[in-house]
């Protein structure tokens, strides 16, 4: 498979005040294949935005290499910029006093393309993002969701090979977030763009990304396909269903063994969710439950979601 984005040993130190340096990104390496959609995950301050901005040429890395479709971005920034567009965090990225069409046309010009040649594509984007009715309204009067859709359209209209999306659904209401997700999913399914997306919203990631890269403290901790991660965690995620409440002492003993274990109750039922590494741990749990009054109704594998997987990894349970 053809690699269109490659990051090699990317490091960024930010100097603060006198001499002190904070490492935002620490020898991060990964690559993204043509038309692949990859999620970049990590807690706040993990270095996601810094990584994305380094790729976009907006932050100068301390060391490392960035290759965009065969071009070394740090040595040939202008050439690299022909290959990458970005939607950066926040409700901005567009001109508030221009209408959607004027914004799109401006970004075409900014890319050095002639508006006449891409008029068809501009119409297509206006259609796709439902901006037709509002095409005469200045962007500042559009709803927050519309603005974000327009910002995404403005990144797309640059027609670059690689698209960077930093928190594209941040601050959107549920409905608009869903709508934007739908558009992204459509785009990903068409397989016409290579996308690197960072998000806190695991629904977005689970919905559209084939692969995820998880960074923590500036370093890559996981780089795997979403389906593999799901499989890995499916084996170890158990759910116990009990009739009646769980004793206080039992709960304490369980939590001592499994700090991430979760207990919830609905009506007479108690549910225990735990990640068990192997069969012997299952017996340990059963041993503790045996001493209580509650009866075990069922034991099953729980369908994990990406959010839990992410939290488990970041909390250092796996690594």
């Amino acid at each position, binding site marked *: 498979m053809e690699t269109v984005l490659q990051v090699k040993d990317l490091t960024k130190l930010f100097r603060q005040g006198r001499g002190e340096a904070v490492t935002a990104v620490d020898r991060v390496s990964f690559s993204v294949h043509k038309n692949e959609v990859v999620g970049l995950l990590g807690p706040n301050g993990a270095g996601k935005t810094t990584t994305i901005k380094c790729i976009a040429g*907006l932050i100068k890395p301390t060391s490392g290499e960035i290759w965009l479709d065969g071009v070394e971005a740090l040595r040939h920034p202008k050439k690299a910029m022909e290959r990458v567009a970005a939607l950066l965090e926040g409700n901005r990225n567009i001109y508030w*006093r221009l209408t959607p069409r004027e914004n799109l046309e401006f970004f075409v010009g900014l890319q050095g393309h002639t508006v006449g040649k891409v008029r068809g594509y501009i119409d297509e984007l206006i259609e796709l993002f439902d901006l037709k009715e509002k095409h005469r309204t200045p962007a500042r009067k559009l709803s927050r969701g519309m603005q974000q859709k327009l910002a995404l359209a403005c990144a797309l209209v640059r027609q670059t090979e690689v698209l960077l999306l930093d928190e594209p659904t941040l601050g959107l209401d549920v409905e608009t977030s869903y709508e934007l997700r739908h558009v992204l999913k459509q785009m990903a399914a068409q397989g016409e763009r290579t996308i690197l997306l960072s998000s806190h919203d695991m629904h977005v990631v689970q919905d559209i990304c084939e692969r995820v890269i998880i960074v923590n403290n500036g370093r890559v901790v996981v780089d795997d396909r979403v389906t593999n991660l799901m499989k890995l965690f499916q084996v170890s995620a158990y759910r116990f269903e009990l009739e009646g409440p769980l004793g206080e002492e039992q709960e304490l003993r369980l939590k001592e063994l499994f700090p991430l274990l979760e207990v919830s109750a609905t009506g007479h039922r108690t549910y225990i969710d735990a990640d068990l590494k192997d069969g012997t741990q299952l017996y340990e749990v059963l041993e503790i439950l045996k001493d209580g009054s509650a009866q075990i109704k069922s034991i099953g594998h729980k369908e994990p979601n990406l959010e839990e997987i992410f939290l488990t990894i970041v909390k250092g349970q796996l690594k």
Partner: protein
Amino acid sequence: MRYLALFKAQLKMRYIYLKRYYFDTLSMIITMFLVFLIIFYGATALLGGATPTDSGDTLEGIVVGFMVWTFALVAYANLSWGMIEEAQQGTLEQLYMSPLGFGWVNIFRVAASFIVNALMVIVVLLLMMATTGKWLNLDVPSLIPLILLTVAGAYGIGFFMGGLALVFKRVQSALQVLQFVLVIFIAAPLGWLPFMKFLPLSLGTRLIGMVMIEERSLLQLPPGDVLFLIGNSAFYFGLGFLIFKLFENVARDRGLLGHY
């Protein structure tokens, strides 16, 4: 072709702003005009209408000086305040990602704003001449290169302050003060203090005055002065742009481009 596309995009945006926000445009023209009236009639009352100066007549000199100030002010504001606005809006980073380079993006921005603002300044100038009855010589082929050269100095200062804004962010008060420093440059009494021609805008204003008031053409101006103006403008524009690039690099290193 790619550069032409970029220039057209910038020009179109400036034009849309001017037209869509015609109320802003109109109120700016009116404000400028009112300020001019106050200065002009204030000076008339004070001077009794006749004191010899470098540019011939003081009152006519005020018209010329005010015109140059208007040009310089919009040039300067477009870069310095403009940069702050783009940073706040979050479009600065998008501009920065143009494959044609941030330098060209800004140079075309300057060119576009010059053309669009020239339309506005012409309106103010006509108003000034009509109310004062001082119809000055509008030798367009001589004036265009002179005005471009003169205002280049103001663009240099604009680039400098724009760069400063990228890194230090809170420069608004300095920006405001500088707007009035421009007046000092323009009103510099070169006959009395000739070394002031080393400042930006000063000599240019005087040469423009020679064309508009003394009705000379560009070719009839002292060649030494014209050459000096070219050097002076190239120096201030180049220096401002260079310092801007320097600050831009610092901002990129510290990750400040997107913050405001």
